[in-house]
């Protein structure tokens, strides 16, 4: 058997931003038809490396070869010309245009007077749609189809552009279970067509499932690069964080109290069909459900963000009237949203402003003037309590920190007001392995101190790891409840599907 052709070869890539080296001489090689998993903590340099390959950032040193030919990326267009395509976690389709328009956006076939030849693009788009078996029409507006389908459209589009190398950056973050399966199937089909793939993900199970070889990036260096069958998941994590991680979930001997802190009774809203829950003191209640099951809509309704058609929210037996985020906070409820960037943080504002945002109401002097001294103390206290890695909280903006530290800020702004009920929606999404453990520890500690926690997650393992009880949501209703002793992946999935 002959040596496989090398599709992409990276030699000694270096990149610094403002004198701070981010990539220290990266060497990496990707064979034709190979799936290479690229893993690493947030801030390890994965995005920077991909941006160098994609022509978004210019490299400082090193060479790149594509199928043996030198490749000097200067703009995203260079990558496209070389047949390198990116599938990002944020999709790059225009939601106001049709499927066909999106597919031909860069290169519309035009007729007389530069008029777009719609007959032609719709016909060609239909061919691709049929080939990939997508449940859309060429004239479907992209904004009306699900994220998973959008991703398929992007993949199909990249194949129309004859991409030879495809880079998937966290492609599964917003996919449902079945969409994920379909994506994996598509990736395997691409592989059969000798397409070379780099697959970046935090979800190590997926990486092991898909990839032929795995490379680990840590602090701008490749610290491991070998065939996937030569390494175990535990070893991989050790390489990623650079130290041994003894356990994945913190242990605790806390016991669940009898008092019901939060009760939601017969909640009905647009996507929620009659859900009732009772959350006890010191309890961590997990909530699992596929995307679109109504779990996020349920907690948003409980928190007063979405309107409720009927039902009531009781805190320690007292009904909340005028349900709104403001009244919820007054009753000691905190809400960590699933979308950290969109709803959790003031990204472009300093860390300090973010940490004190909720606390402001409690540190006012006369005329509602904010007590700066107390504010500074609060911020300092939170940073040390949560071990947030920031040097100057008044100058460094939230978006300059890594995903894990950003999530700690979101937790911090709530912990500042010492709520006793936490609603957490995907609290570890986009957070790397090391920081995940820290976040679990924060959650566990809050529960030990008597707080009740309602936690939504798509990661079954973490729910089974830290929850006392799991509710499974399906089609806007509770389809089952599992006690700790009955926890198993099969049981959860069975209830969810």
């Amino acid at each position, binding site marked *: 058997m002959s040596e496989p052709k090398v599709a992409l070869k990276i030699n000694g890539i270096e990149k610094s*931003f*403002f004198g*701070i080296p*981010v990539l220290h001489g990266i060497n990496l090689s990707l064979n034709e038809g190979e799936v290479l998993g690229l893993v690493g903590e947030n*801030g390890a*340099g994965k995005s*920077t490396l991909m941006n160098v390959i994609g022509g978004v*950032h210019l490299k400082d040193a090193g060479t790149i070869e594509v199928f043996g030919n030198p490749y000097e990326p200067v703009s995203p267009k260079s990558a496209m010309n070389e047949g390198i395509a990116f599938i990002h976690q944020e999709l790059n389709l225009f939601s106001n245009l049709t499927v066909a328009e999106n597919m031909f956006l860069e290169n519309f076939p035009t007729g007389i007077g530069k008029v777009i030849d719609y007959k032609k693009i719709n016909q060609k788009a239909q061919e691709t749609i049929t080939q990939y078996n997508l449940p859309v029409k060429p004239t479907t507006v992209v904004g009306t189809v699900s994220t998973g389908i959008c991703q398929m459209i992007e993949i199909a589009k990249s194949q129309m552009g004859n991409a030879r190398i495809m880079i998937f950056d966290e492609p599964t973050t917003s996919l449902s279970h079945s969409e994920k399966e379909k994506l994996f199937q598509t990736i395997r089909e691409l592989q059969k067509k000798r397409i070379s793939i780099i697959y970046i993900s935090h979800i190590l199970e997926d990486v092991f499932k898909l990839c032929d070889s795995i490379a680990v990036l840590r602090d*701008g260096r490749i610290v491991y690069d070998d065939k996937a069958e030569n390494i175990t998941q535990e070893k991989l994590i050790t390489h990623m964080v650079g130290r041994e991680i003894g356990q994945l979930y913190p242990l605790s001997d806390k016991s669940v109290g009898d008092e019901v802190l939060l009760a939601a009774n017969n909640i009905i809203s647009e996507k929620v069909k009659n859900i009732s829950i009772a959350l006890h003191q010191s309890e961590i209640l997990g909530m699992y459900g596929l995307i679109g099951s109504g779990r996020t809509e349920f907690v948003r309704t409980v*928190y007063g*963000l979405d309107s409720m058609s009927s039902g009531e929210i009781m805190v320690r037996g007292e009904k909340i009237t005028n349900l*709104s*985020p*403001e009244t*919820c*906070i007054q009753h000691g409820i905190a*809400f960590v*949203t699933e979308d950290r960037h*969109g*709803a*959790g*943080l*003031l*990204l*472009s*504002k300093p860390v300090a*402003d973010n940490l004190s*945002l*909720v606390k*402001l*109401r409690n540190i*006012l002097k006369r*005329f*509602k*003037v*904010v007590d700066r001294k107390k504010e500074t103390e609060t911020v300092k206290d939170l940073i040390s309590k949560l071990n947030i890695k920031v040097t100057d909280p008044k100058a*460094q*903006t939230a*978006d*300059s*920190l*890594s995903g894990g530290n950003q999530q700690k800020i979101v937790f911090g*702004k709530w912990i500042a007001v010492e709520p006793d009920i936490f609603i957490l929606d995907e609290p570890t999404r986009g957070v790397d392995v090391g920081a995940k453990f820290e976040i679990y520890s924060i959650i566990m500690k809050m529960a030990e101190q008597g707080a009740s926690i309602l936690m939504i997650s798509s990661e079954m393992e973490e729910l089974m790891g830290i929850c006392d009880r799991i509710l499974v949501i399906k089609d806007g209703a509770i389809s089952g409840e599992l006690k700790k002793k009955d926890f198993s992946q099969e049981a959860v999935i069975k209830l969810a599907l």
Partner: protein
Amino acid sequence: MNKIKEKARRILVDTPILPVLILYFIASVFVVPNFATVYNIKNLFLQVSDVLVVACGLTFVVLNGGIDFSVTATLTLGSIIGSYIMAMSPIKHMPGLSIPAAILAMLGVGLIIGLVNGFAVARLKMPSFIATTATNLCFSGLAVLLCMQLTGKSSIYGLPKAFIILGGSGKYFVVPIILSALCCLFCYLLLAKTKFGREVYAIGVNNVCAEVSGVNVKKVTVLIMVLSSIFAAIEGILLTARNEAGVSSLGDKMFTPIIACVIVGGTSTSGGFGGIRQTLYGALFIALINNTLNLLQVEWNWLMLVQGVLILLATLAGIAVKKSRKLNVIGGGA
């Protein structure tokens, strides 16, 4: 050394207009004839007071990511109604009664227009530029109609002497300067020191995050629109006193210099960055430019052109600052 550098960088990012303002002022002292005279400096400060109050109010709206086109209509309508009360109503011969009544009425006009704008933006979710364009048209039209109906002319004269003091006639020139400085100080404290001010910034950056964090976004938005209109009305009081008349065309060409103060000062039009300090520097700078070009006997149209170019430059500078921050982010994230 590093500390000085850091401080200089802060000034450049936060108030890039400040060094320009200082340099321009120094240059004017040496280059522009009759600039460095007591009379002219007094004039300069009066010119600042002509826009500063309304610009401070508008700053809240711009910080919130919105715009308020109706400020000129507010000050005009207030001017006509106030002047009517003082010069034509049955109580016109009792200045002790008519002046406070007129001032209250003018503030009332501000309050009502602010509430209308606030309702449209916060409750009906109308974009502020549409809502305030509409209210601007309605209320400036109303001002002209009202004035014509009442007097048959386009202005109302015969205001009481005590009221005109507010405009700074003769030896009282410090009155409007002090009043506008007080308004500016009030806005500064409100924005920089209070919970409300923090909430204005938070909504300007990310209103979803603000709402989740317990900020009553609707209430704050209404308050912002009301503040803008009230300060426009206060400016209307000062200008009416200065013109010694209620003029139905008072606000006609004012919007450009007002928004110029806010934007040239460095408050970002996309919301969340900037503040009253910036607007103060902006107002000083715009007044300085108008003043010096006047002294150099440059035509009014050139003035407009210069203001246009300045707004463009300031916006470009804002984009550049934003970009440099973004780059920093990538560097810091790794």
